[in-house]
């Protein structure tokens, strides 16, 4: 990952994977706040399908770290109730394809409680889940539906990319008085980086500039940060200087950072692993053109997934989701003033 963003911390740092950094946040907050408890399928004995909760059972006991039946809708509903009655539940949903099972509790109840009760009740829950399209996952196991949740007011949505953000954002999420959906990228779990020790938070709703440049802004999130970064390196060799804005939060959206960057570069591309139709790319493109239309040197370009279900076979997956080449080609066309293909 690019070096542009310096961690704003003093004190000790530890090198770890995103997976471990998320665990650090859970451990830290469970030790500090007795109200925090964790539940989900295979999270206790097994330590979670992706190892994020490994060791928590041993450290905090089976009252606060619970394996559950396969009951996603119930899990989210119970979390809402537990939160209303004074706890701070953190639920693991094994992958984002299962979020549709929880829709009613999540978007009609958790997200609306505070508003619909006239501000009398808040719902401090965190729903962690994995997302990412890859071969072999197929139509029920490898979606990127994060963009769909932007539609629903009342939810906060975070997508950590670096391990430091994994810890910092998750810690903020647990402390937040609202329901927070945390999307964890399949492609990033294993990526290592320095993570500050101790009480380290990253505010929800603040994007990060990962790489500075003057010719073009790429706005992206999640696993696509890796491809955007690779594309930026390649574009640099072709004389194009790319700035990368990592959203980190989809809701609230940090319009200020996005617009500041695009106002400088005057060219914008939005890259996302989710479908372009009705998704992250369409929302951000709209925000950019509404605010900066007359400053732009070209249309806001979108590079996202095709509007198909995530397939199983490798060539079909490759055709569906953005790759470095697609990003580079789109950037070249934009800079050369050609219409997006």
């Amino acid at each position: 990952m690019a070096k542009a963003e310096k961690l704003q911390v003093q004190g000790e740092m530890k090198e770890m994977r995103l997976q471990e950094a998320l665990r650090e946040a859970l451990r830290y907050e469970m030790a500090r706040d007795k109200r925090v408890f964790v539940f989900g399928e295979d999270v206790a004995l097994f330590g979670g399908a992706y190892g994020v909760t490994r060791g928590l059972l041993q450290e905090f006991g089976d009252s606060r770290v619970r394996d559950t039946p396969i009951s996603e809708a119930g899990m989210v509903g119970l979390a809402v109730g537990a939160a209303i009655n004074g706890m701070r539940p953190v639920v693991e949903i094994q992958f984002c394809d299962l979020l549709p099972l929880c829709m009613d509790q999540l978007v009609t109840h958790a997200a609306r409680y505070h508003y619909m009760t006239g501000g009398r009740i808040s719902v401090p829950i965190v729903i962690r889940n994995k997302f990412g399209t890859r071969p072999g996952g197929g139509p029920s196991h490898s979606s990127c539906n994060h963009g769909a949740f932007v539609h629903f007011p009342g939810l906060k949505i975070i997508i950590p990319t670096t391990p430091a953000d994994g810890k910092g954002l998750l810690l903020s999420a647990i402390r937040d008085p609202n329901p927070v959906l945390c999307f964890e990228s399949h492609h990033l779990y294993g990526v290592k980086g320095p993570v500050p020790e101790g009480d380290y938070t990253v505010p929800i709703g603040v994007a990060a500039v990962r790489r500075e440049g003057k010719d073009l802004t790429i706005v992206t999130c999640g696993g696509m940060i890796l491809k955007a970064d690779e594309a930026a390196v390649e574009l640099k060799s072709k004389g194009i200087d790319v700035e990368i804005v990592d959203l980190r939060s989809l809701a609230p959206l940090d319009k200020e950072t996005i617009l500041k960057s695009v106002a400088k570069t005057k060219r914008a591309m939005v890259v996302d692993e989710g479908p372009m139709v009705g998704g992250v790319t369409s929302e951000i493109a709209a925000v950019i053109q509404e605010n900066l239309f007359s400053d732009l040197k070209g249309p806001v370009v979108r590079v996202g997934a095709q509007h198909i279900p995530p397939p199983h076979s490798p060539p079909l997956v490759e055709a569906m989701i953005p790759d470095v080449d697609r990003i580079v080609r789109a950037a070249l066309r934009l800079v050369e003033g050609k219409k997006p293909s």
Partner: protein
Amino acid sequence: MLSTAKREEMLRMMIKLRAFEEKLEELYQKRAMYGSTHSYRGQEAVAVGVCSALEPRDLVASYHRGTGHLIAKGADLYRLMCECMGRLEGYSKGRGGKMHMGDMSFGFLGNTGTVGATVPIATGAALAAQLRGSKEVVVSFLGDGAMNQGVVHEAMNFAGIWKLPVIYVCENNLYAMTVSVEKSIAIKHVAERAKGYGFEGKVIDGNDVELVYAETLEAAEKGRAGGGATFLECLTYRWDGHFGGDPGTGYRRKEEIEEWKRRCPIKRLKEKLIAEKNLGAGEFDMMSAAVYSELDEVTKRALASPMPAREFDLDSIYARSEVGHG
């Protein structure tokens, strides 16, 4: 009592199911198949006993551990193998993988990676059978883990109130991934829940293929005659890990695994047939060798078959005309 020929057929089918999983594991190790395996080894008697008792027009719906149901219901091994390998000639053209298939030509309603999701679908197919007066019976295979999904409860209630011709075959292999049934269900046998929906629930030895056959036959006859749904809790065990790469030992005792291996459904029928002098040991070996070599041949062909093109096909999302049934 079942004929020797029928029992030999079931024995051969169980070997086929097992051989398929072993081949898949080999291909998984070589990264020639995509996604995870979900081995059916150890549970063969359920799929084979159930499907052998059905008529060709009857339907089944399956789940993530679905290869056994597919083969036992009549899937073509080559096309199934191709699908696992993401090949164009697979049942789903490489789009779905082994967890996402459906083909009404052999009565396969579909399977999916979302636990429990096919249970209402199977129940709806049973509703259609009732409405059409087709005398079809629908089998809904599900794991013990699926019993705690909301839609499963809703579907079973429908089957109860509308007396639908559906058989819920719950393969209780004692675990859902790493979580034991004891931890996720507060009653001893999930079959007890059937009573709450208003139909019969039975707990049976899922490693006894002849028993599974007989119980399915009885439930199917009842369903066909308008007697409504049946719930069969088949006690069984998966020998392997939950998915490829899971040794299956972190959350299960070695002795438990060994004990269940001794209850091997294939060994059981084989020994019985041999004791009755209806099968020679040599015959069994030949039967087994033939199945394994058929799979080798199928695998070779699948490996040589084309991958889909690196294209997305937006036209494939919507159907242009009604397909599937009929």
